[in-house]
């Protein structure tokens, strides 16, 4: 089976600075974490893989370039990346994930709206579908983003800090959704910051600090030595 995502020599420069250096990584199926300190290039790695920022090297999805398999790849950006004062309801936001499935003009067909509603129900927000997004709590906004990601019905979901700044109940809810996705045969790659929860949530991990420090099953790579290597001693660029 081809890997859901394969990175070859991915490098990102911000001016003189290397944000990501020569990362080659074959992402296995399952629940996969990208772990590393602030400024390690975790989000940058995802964005570069998705072609959202200039980079060197290449990323293949299911063995093909992204353009050939766009519909199979979903994305959950960081919550702060958009303006939550935008005039839209929770359902409107999730509907945006269904737009390209029909067409880019006119009203969204009823079937697509129904699919968006179903995605909201999966994250437990069916009763808030018609609420303006600006009136939702941070945790609810995060779940709206998760629902939009689910509504893409992708086989590989790339998530940038899905558990950032949410309360414990929301975190449990989101983890439950992620587990169900993986049980359904999907793959999830999530940028993650909370070291304590890594072993009981994720199966595989990439330890990143500009360079790839270690990658593999959590039981093998999430060791005190690699954690010190990733967080303690800065990796020379």
């Amino acid at each position: 089976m081809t890997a859901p995502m394969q990175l070859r020599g991915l490098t990102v420069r911000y001016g003189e600075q290397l944000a990501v250096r020569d990362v080659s990584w074959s992402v296995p199926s399952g629940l996969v974490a990208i772990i590393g300190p602030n400024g390690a290039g975790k989000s940058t790695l995802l964005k570069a893989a998705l072609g959202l920022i200039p980079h060197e090297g290449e990323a293949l999805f299911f063995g093909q370039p992204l353009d050939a398999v766009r519909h199979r790849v979903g994305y959950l950006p960081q919550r702060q990346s958009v303006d939550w004062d935008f005039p839209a309801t929770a359902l409107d936001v999730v509907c945006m994930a269904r737009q390209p499935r029909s067409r880019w003009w006119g009203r969204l067909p009823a079937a697509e709206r129904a699919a968006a509603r179903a995605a909201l129900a999966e994250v437990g927000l069916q009763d808030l579908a018609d609420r303006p997004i600006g009136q939702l709590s941070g945790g609810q906004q995060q779940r709206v983003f998760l629902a939009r990601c689910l509504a893409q019905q992708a086989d590989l979901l790339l998530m940038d800090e899905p558990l950032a700044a949410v309360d414990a109940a929301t975190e449990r809810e989101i983890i439950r959704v992620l587990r169900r996705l993986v049980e359904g045969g999907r793959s999830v790659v999530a940028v993650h910051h909370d070291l304590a929860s890594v072993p009981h949530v994720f199966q595989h991990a990439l330890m990143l600090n500009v360079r790839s420090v270690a990658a593999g099953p959590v039981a093998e790579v999430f060791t005190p030595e690699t954690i010190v290597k990733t967080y303690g001693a800065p990796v020379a660029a």
Partner: protein
Amino acid sequence: MILSHNTLIVMLGCALLGVAAGAVGCFALLRGRALMADAMGHAALPGVVGAAIVSALMGWDPRALPPLLLGGTVAGGLGLWAVQGLSATRIIRQDTAIAVVLASFYALGVVGLSVVQVLPGVAQAGLSHFILGQAATMRAEDAWAAGALALFCVLAVLALFPRLTALCFDAEFAALQGLRVAWVDAALLGLILLVCVAGLPAVGLVLVVALLVLPAATARLLNRRLPGMFATACAVGGASGLLGAMISAGHEGWPTGAAVVLVGVAFFVSALLVRGR
């Protein structure tokens, strides 16, 4: 007050201009392009002046709007290109680039204005009206042109509605879904430029940005969803244009642009009070 035929034409023209500005203004506001619109309006001035010189040299009627607006569009587009080019270097911030371009194009235009006054024919063209606006000179064909513009802007925005929405809410997500974000963004900027230049003769370059911003901002206060915001912005824009032109016609010497903008401000403040309660 008895409305003359001429006043009715001016009111109609300003109302249609307001509708176009409301339609485009919604997305200009959501995409954070208000300052950019201001820069484009100011950047149009040297183009208007240049076009007046060409008109005079060719022996055309220097008051004919089409060549002047074409010149304004070219210069406004150049200003836009300059802002994009300067910001893309990442050496200076976009707001700095906007300020530099706005000031330099406008200064060039003002110097040009005083220089061309000596050219035969140009002095009568009333070019200084492009700064503060003078809708009273609007002729029937100008009102028709404003109508065509409004129709085009409303239809263009409606046709691009899901694309513009996706662009303004989350451009990266839209790009990942295969939307050609650069093209949609360029289309939006083109529409903004179109409204700015079309608004110059009536509202003037100083205030044309308010025509884009006020109806949209008012509509945002009164609506929770984008379709409602869009419809409200078109209505508020149209009403501002209509009432502003009427008020200015009834008071000798009141510039139309300022009257239209003040009506827009009244709508905005009313909406603020409604929302505040």
